């Protein structure tokens, strides 16, 4: 799994790439945790997970997002999901994760 992080207007933007399934869920979880820690030290105290490069995600990835959200809540970090593709949008709706997370069409909207 490819993973890059940048800082935009004080917020951490984390961009995973590929898909999150059984094989990659662990790496995804670890990258997410590191990104939350990074966001806790950023001025904006916000983590935006950029979904643009993600093909799809199984329940492992979704539950990793919940674990990261817990860590973020405890550290006072806000978390948002940006730019999901059509498949990811459907998965977020079917799992009702669109009710647990703010989901936006662009990075700017999440900032």
């Amino acid at each position: 799994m490819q993973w890059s992080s940048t800082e935009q207007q004080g917020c951490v933007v984390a961009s995973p790439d590929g898909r999150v399934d059984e094989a990659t869920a662990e790496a995804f979880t670890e990258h997410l945790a590191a990104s939350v820690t990074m966001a806790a030290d950023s001025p904006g105290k916000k983590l935006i997970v950029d979904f643009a490069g993600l093909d799809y995600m199984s329940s492992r990835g979704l539950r990793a997002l919940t674990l990261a959200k817990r860590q973020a809540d405890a550290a006072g970090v806000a978390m948002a999901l940006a730019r999901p593709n059509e498949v990811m949008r459907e998965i977020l709706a079917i799992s009702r994760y669109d009710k647990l997370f703010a989901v936006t069409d662009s990075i700017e909207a999440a900032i």
Partner: protein
Amino acid sequence: MLVRFWGTRGSLPVAATASIVQDKVAHALLAASGRSFADIEEARSFARNELDFATSGTFGGATTCVEIEAGDPANGDPYIICDMGSGLRGFGLDAMRRCGQGHARVYHFFMSHLHWDHIMGFPFFVPAFDPNAHIIIHAGHEDAEEALRRQQEEISFPVKFDWLRAKIEFRTLKVGETYQIGAVQVELMEQHHSHSSFGYRFTDAEGKVVVFSTDSEHKMDRMEGEADVEQFFGNADLVICDTMYSLADSVSMKEDWGHSSNIVAIDLCHGGRAKRLALFHHEPVYSDADIARMHAESVRYEELTREHDPLEVLCAYDGLEVSL
């Protein structure tokens, strides 16, 4: 092998109210507007073939009870039943009818656990009053007998357990063992649930496999343990799985309530390369339309995340029969 669902609801039995039935009739009339029917048979055929299931039918409201018909019942193979929810009453009446036609009066029960929704049918199980019946209750729990006796104490029910006329035995099964019981081989798996629960894997002589896994929470902080669950579901012809909540509910408000989601059930079946999944232990507050929507979404999720052969996603309802 044939699987018959006698009760598919979780937690509490429910029944349709007058307004729910009126709503179904109104929808059916709308769908049929402009048409006329020569007789009741033609109208029935329209209801069966052209209306959606949530309009023409219902998922039902009896709590969990599933019958597995294996081997050759005409030649003495015994009944196999998972759980004793309120759906057991209907099974008991039908079993008496079949016993009248020569079916063996031997009943092997396999208990997921002893919560009320999974045992409440037993006081209404007519074969328990049959002096020629032999009832063997298998459980992973050692306190199955205590649970069944307690619900027939006078404070809860007028007929005491000791007044039942059938020969009733309790057997505790162990994880890791394989048992030959009736026409099936049985293995069990311990699951995460309040006071624990057990999943069962049944294999018949032809190698057909049914897994019964209800009231099982797959915890977020123990995802590595799911490989064992996938193995238990491995290549099953049918997995009956607790899919009571949405994934979001199961990790937030309803975390630790002991139940699973459609999404996790599909992932586990995909991981185990199971052939069919039956969504089960339906949330009692869900309407037929809600359950039908959850089913359609589950089918879609399976499609979106499929990497190997398709997994057929069924939605269990009271009265469903699946032959394998």
